[in-house]
């Protein structure tokens, strides 16, 4: 290997004699003998070789001697200071003077190569001096002698902007700055002028919001509570303060605690002042505005204009008598059994009452004297329901149904004109003799009393004439109603089937279909005969069917808007119907008008048990589980164009007063009017009977 130092030490000769540098220095890969590449050479310190040649042979490290040799060299060799080791070959190389100079220059931060002059004179080839002939041969561009289009456009835009007032000139800018500074001092009051100097014109209209402006409501004016020195009573006491603290914001009547300050100078700023104003501002722009026509009216004005009850007299309003129907029963049991029905006789002197204890009794209306009483059914069977006096005076008898047994008792009564009684007894005896067994009847008639007295005259004493046993499948009797002429009566049973019974023939039939045929209607709740026409009103659970009995057709269906009908009552003209329901409603139907109620009355707070229309006076009454009996003035006009007048005139609470035992409300279960006078009898669940007169 040729040491570099050897070459460098040779004197520099003329280029002609100088050796070609490529002879000894090469960067070609072939000439680099060690092929390890650019890796840290200390990897090879542990090995005897220092890399590989192009043939893959190991290049052995040259012998560099030990430390002693090194020391000797240091001592002896004058070139030692400029000797370095080539890491690629491991050989020592002695640097020449130029190399040393190079290193020194680098260390001192000078230009490494001493032959390079950094401050050489600049030769200005492309001078600013115009030369006779150009350096380059480019022809001059057009833009160099034509005014700039883009500049023109830009200036044009600026001029336009200044004209339009979008851009400010220097002077204007100065003026604007002056104004801004004035504004900063809060001194731009000069800018205001009379903005309302002219009337609103068309151009204003064109830009105006078209919808009507809803002015926001004013804030509520301050009350005495807010005063810094309020009257004493406006301050909170401890209890009120506690209540106020426990309330939510929206519950509070005032949003602060009223406070009294001894002097004005002690009043501090209110902590919520800004927040309240902020709330208001929020309301102004976030809250929907609604115009609500708030009528500043008296609630009195909303109430319907009705004639005063005192102008609608007479009506029952005085509690005249109140007594237990069966005092002995009350003694037996702690809780008196309720009255199930009241019925006044056609003469108006007597009335019959049936009880849940199975007793039937006849009382004198005005005195409460019990003229007759009998135990027809046992209480365990369910007692008697719906005792009803035959409305025809010629047939003085009472019908009552057994609630459990399904048996109807026909009871002849002697509490009437004796002549009528005897005539009826005779007729009964003769007909029962003739037609005893010939009928195909839907119910079983058992004649109990047909025998004449010893002298041939019929017995006129009160006694049970006959019983009618409904088919067992139908259950007990729920309701019973007489036809006005007193020959027919109908029974509604628990199962909801309806039977019509006839006295003269002692037969029963099912007008709506029944035995054998499929029932034409749903379960019947109650039913009534029309007092004038051959029409039957049958109340189902939520509708009322009207049947023509002569043609055996359905006339119409009434819809009372109730869910559990409980009672019906037909006006004596047959043109109106009153229906009560267990969902505490009362519906008045004008039958000529519509199938929907003329008036829906919610006058009770609990189920209506019975309603009656007075046979001759413009009165009706309803009794309810809420313990009251409501008397209505119900005037019907002959003029068909005029609506009936319905005015509640009195709420009777006779059963509430002095009721014995029992907690809770005494239900009123039965009522009936006197046939001619404005008198009313009611029976209640406390076993009492109350008689009201006008």
């Amino acid at each position, binding site marked *: 290997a040729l040491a570099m130092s050897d070459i460098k030490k040779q004197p520099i000769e003329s280029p002609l004699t100088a050796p070609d540098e490529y002879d000894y220095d090469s960067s070609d890969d072939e000439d680099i003998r060690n092929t390890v590449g650019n890796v840290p050479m200390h990897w090879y310190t542990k090995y005897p070789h220092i890399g590989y040649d192009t043939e893959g042979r190991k290049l052995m490290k040259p012998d560099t001697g030990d430390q002693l040799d090194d020391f000797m060299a240091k001592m002896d060799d004058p070139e030692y200071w400029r000797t370095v080791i080539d890491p690629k070959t491991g050989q020592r190389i002695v640097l020449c003077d130029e190399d040393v100079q190079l290193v020194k220059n680098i260390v001192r931060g000078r230009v490494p190569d001493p032959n390079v002059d950094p401050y050489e004179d600049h030769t200005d080839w492309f001078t600013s001096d115009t030369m006779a002939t150009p350096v380059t041969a480019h022809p001059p561009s057009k833009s160099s002698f034509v005014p700039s289009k883009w500049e023109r456009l830009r200036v044009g835009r600026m001029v336009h902007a200044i004209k339009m007032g979008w851009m400010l000139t220097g002077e204007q800018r100065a003026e604007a700055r002056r104004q801004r500074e004035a504004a900063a001092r809060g001194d731009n009051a000069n800018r205001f002028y009379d903005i309302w100097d002219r009337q609103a014109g068309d151009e204003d209209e064109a830009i105006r919001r078209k919808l009507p402006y809803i002015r926001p409501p004013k804030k509520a004016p301050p009350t005495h509570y*807010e005063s810094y020195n*309020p009257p004493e009573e406006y301050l909170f006491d401890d209890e009120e303060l506690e209540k106020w603290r426990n309330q939510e914001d929206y519950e509070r009547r005032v949003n602060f605690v009223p406070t009294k300050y001894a002097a*004005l100078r002690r009043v501090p700023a209110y902590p919520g002042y800004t927040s309240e104003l902020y709330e208001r*501002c929020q309301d102004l722009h976030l809250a929907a505005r609604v115009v609500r026509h708030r009528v500043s009216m008296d609630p009195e004005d909303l109430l319907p204009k*009705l004639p005063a009850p005192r102008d609608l007299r007479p009506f029952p309003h005085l509690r005249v008598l109140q007594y237990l129907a069966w005092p002995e029963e009350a003694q037996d049991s702690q809780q008196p059994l309720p009255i199930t029905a009241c019925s006044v006789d056609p003469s108006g002197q007597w009335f019959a009452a049936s009880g849940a204890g199975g007793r039937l009794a006849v009382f004198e209306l005005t005195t409460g004297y019990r003229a007759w009483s009998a135990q027809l059914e046992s209480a365990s069977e369910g007692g008697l329901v719906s005792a009803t006096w035959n409305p025809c005076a010629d047939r003085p008898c009472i019908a009552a149904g057994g609630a459990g047994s399904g048996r109807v008792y026909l009871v002849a009564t002697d509490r009437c004109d004796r002549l009528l009684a005897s005539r009826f007894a005779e007729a009964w005896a003769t007909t029962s003799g003739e037609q005893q067994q010939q009928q195909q009847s839907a119910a079983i008639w058992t004649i109990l009393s047909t025998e004449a007295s010893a002298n041939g005259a019929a017995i006129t004493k009160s006694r049970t004439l006959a019983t009618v046993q409904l088919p067992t499948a139908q259950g007990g009797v729920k309701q019973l109603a007489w036809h006005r002429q007193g020959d027919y009566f109908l029974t509604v049973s628990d199962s909801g089937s309806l039977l019509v019974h006839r006295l003269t023939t002692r037969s029963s039939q099912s007008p709506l279909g029944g035995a054998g045929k499929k029932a034409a209607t749903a379960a019947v709740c109650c039913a009534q005969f029309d007092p004038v026409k051959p029409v039957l009103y049958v109340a189902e659970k939520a509708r009322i069917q009207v049947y023509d009995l002569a043609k055996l057709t359905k006339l119409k269906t009434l819809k009372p808007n109730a869910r559990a009908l409980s009672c019906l009552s037909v006006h004596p003209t047959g043109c109106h119907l009153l229906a009560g329901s267990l969902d505490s409603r009362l519906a008045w139907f004008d039958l000529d008008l519509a199938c929907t109620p003329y008036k829906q009355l919610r006058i009770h707070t609990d189920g209506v048990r019975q309603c009656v229309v007075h046979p001759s006076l413009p009165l009706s009454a309803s009794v309810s589980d809420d313990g009251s009996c409501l008397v209505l003035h119900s005037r019907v006009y002959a003029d068909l164009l005029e609506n009936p007048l319905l005015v509640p005139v009195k709420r009777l609470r006779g059963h509430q007063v002095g009721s014995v035992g029992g907690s809770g409300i005494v239900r009123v279960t039965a009522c009936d009017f006197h046939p001619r006078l404005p008198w009313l009898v009611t029976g209640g669940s406390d076993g009492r009977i109350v008689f009201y007169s006008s």
Partner: protein
Amino acid sequence: TSSAASLQAAPSKMTKMKKKFTRGEATTFISRKQALKRLQLSLNDFRRLCILKGVYPQEPVNRRRVNKGSSTPKVYYHLKDIQFLGHERVMQKLRDIKAHLKKAKRAKERGEMHTVDRLQRNFPAYTLDHIIRERYPAFEDAVRDLDDCLCLCFLFSRLPKERGVPVEQIRLSARLTVQFLHWVIAARALRKVFVSIKGYYFEADVNGVSVVWSVPHQLGLHDPADVDFKILRTFNDFYTTMLGFVNYRLYSSLGLAYPPALANEVDPSDYCQTGEAHEEFMASLNQPLLSRRGGEAEGNPAEPDDFPDEEAEGAEAASAARRKARAQQRLFNGCRFFLNRETPRQILCFVIRSCGGEVSWSPLSGPGSRYPESDQRVTHQIVDRPLGDSRLSGRAYVQPQWVFDCVNSGSLLPTGDFAPGLPPPPHLSPFAAYSADDADGGDEAAQLPYSATRSAPPDPVELRRPSAAAELEEEDDYEAEDAAKRETAAADAAQVGKQQKKQKKPSVVAEGTQRRTQDAKQAAAEERRLREMMLPKKHKQLYKKMVFSRKRQARESAQLAEKKQKRQRTA
């Protein structure tokens, strides 16, 4: 052929099926989100625009129909309102501002200070003059909306300067409110004053419209955490513009120069800088203003005309109000007041001068003093602390409340009750009726002269926010309150009368009468109950509400009366 023809004709008879929610309410209203999209605005800018333009949400008749069958709670605007907003030129300015800020930020971050400077110089500014004209086509419309404007401007004028509100806005508000107060003084338009724990309430008669505003107490205004001052600032922007124009108009109507100038040269002396002298002396409210002709403006109160209009309803009350107003305008004529330094100077000066009095204070407490304490002609000195023996003769020493109560009553009250050191009589709100309904309330009624004030008429508009339903109920009831109070007061008066009558008669007869009246009462109550039963379902709810609020009112006033009696007994 006829059948064929009919077959051919059939399709033409068929109409296209109408799509649901393509007409009617569903297209009349637009939700806020839709509105934002339509206007290409951010929510903040939209709010700002709504505030400036006075656009508010609307309540559709049927929310489901508007919201395509869904009942999600949404805020609805009328489509026309949104279209109307779309034509607003301020909207473009808002967009410009947004772009401008972006540019400025970018330039600043790049360190291009020259660009920042240029952008700052050309910051897009807008004025709201056209919106004022558009929202209030007539001056009267603006006056009617002045309540909120004044409240907010007075609040801003008293804000401390470090609250994130630009100083110029605060100073502008202060200047404009002072100008307005000057007008009230010059027009002698003050009608009611009330010192509440929240602040001072004033009512002024501005061109026949009563304007109510409140001013917070001066000391220690709290810094609320829950208030977004951006919104308040937007409102204030609009309101200051509005108040400026209103002031201009009011000043011209009185013949005063605008912008206002002081009639007399003021001596800034040692108490303020010369540059601020004008403003300071204006704010003292104790200097007459320059009229247009150049002289000192005469106090020329707008005399309410008294037309004898007997047919009009409430003519009696109206003429009584006019008489009272005239009395208030001349209330303090000839009185010279001196204010001690612990009293609220600006408020008292405003009130006294609005009623024709003269005011001064110690020159040490602030500019605007006109005569010294030792002035012999001083008739009243207002003091708000216990006073020693250092009293000057020939003048009455009163507490500040005397001034306010005098204005409310329209007459000079005896000063003895308001002497310093004594607890003054209760200060009642002139905005609410007070019923001194106790049997022994006679002498008190003399002291408390507000029993005959009229109450505010019911306001038919509601601001409905979903959460504010309860508040509205309250509002409802407050209105009913007055009516009920009046009623109970009347009833109680009748009762008292009856009792007095009864006492004259022998006891047996009285008992009989009592029973009879009781029976009659019961009968009436029952009759009423029967009529209530016949109420149609349509009216039942309304009726129940009305009766409920009345009953509550009656109960509350009864509680108040009871408390009063109890306190009197213990005292």
